[in-house]
């Protein structure tokens, strides 16, 4: 049998397709609420730092996960920083928020934002791995219409500079 010949199935095989469309709701609470409203209303990135160990927490939390004490204070982080690790994804998967296949290639990266030691994972606008590297500077590109989600930052735009203080 060649690939071009039509083959009739010898048996009726059942496939059940159920497009699950699940509405959900996230109630933020005041701390996550300030972070997300900061993205939506002010293009500001609110985080907290622990007075005991100095860790920066993003998204903000009132209890430090390492020290287990309530010693957090607010701190504002810049919307730019340097790239640490990154992935360029070549194989499409379904985006569960839209039900559609993602367009490939696309890049994601772990960025340390200026002002603390917290990191944020987000999309990058560069898909050539040769142009990405540890310590490369990048800056957030904000959406015009923002809704209070992490996607209010559309992606991080890679700059042509390297961070002086980045420690591999």
């Amino acid at each position: 049998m060649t690939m071009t010949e039509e083959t009739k199935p010898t048996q009726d095989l059942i496939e059940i397709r159920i497009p699950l469309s699940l509405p959900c709701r996230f109630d933020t609470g005041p701390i996550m609420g300030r972070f997300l409203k900061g993205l939506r209303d002010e293009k500001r990135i609110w985080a907290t730092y622990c007075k005991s160990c100095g860790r920066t927490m993003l998204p903000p939390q009132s209890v430090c996960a390492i020290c287990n004490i309530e010693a957090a204070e607010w701190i504002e982080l810049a919307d730019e920083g340097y790239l640490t690790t990154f992935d360029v994804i070549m194989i499409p998967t379904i985006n569960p928020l839209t039900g559609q296949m993602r367009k490939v290639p696309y890049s994601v990266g772990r960025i340390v934002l200026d002002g603390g030691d917290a990191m944020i994972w987000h999309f990058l606008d560069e898909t050539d791995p040769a142009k990405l590297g540890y310590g490369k500077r990048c800056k957030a590109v904000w959406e015009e219409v923002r809704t209070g989600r992490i996607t209010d930052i559309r992606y991080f735009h890679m700059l042509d500079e390297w961070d002086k203080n980045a420690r591999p």
Partner: protein
Amino acid sequence: MLEIKNEWAFSIPGKLEIPYRYFAGAFQSKALVALRDKKKIMGSRCPKCRKVFFPPRSNCEVCLSKISDLVEIGPEGTLISWTVVNYREPIHTRRKPYILGLIKPDGADSAMLHFIAGIEPEKLKQGMRLKPVFSRKRAGQILDIKHFKPVI
């Protein structure tokens, strides 16, 4: 102490869109085709321990033997247990309150979960005889049976 203002809290609506696909496989498809075309409920019978299961599977869940026999079960069955669901999520197909019951079809050793309609929940009794009501449009899925109702 961290400064916290209650007015910072708000609610974000979201949605998950998951295109779910289930492949019944060669064995189970035979049973689903019989349900769709002939309104027959088929169970799988284990050659070793002789137990009959619904939904039909090609491996016995008791003794792990391979099963290749489909036998007709029901259509009537006995009510084993039930619950009344009093809330509705958008994903649910039935309005509240609705009854979910475990029905053991005649000839089967396991019970199947399905809707029960045509009777008030207070009148349900364990051991009641029920029979399936089939959907007019059938596609080879469990909802080809619309629900079970009492045998009068």
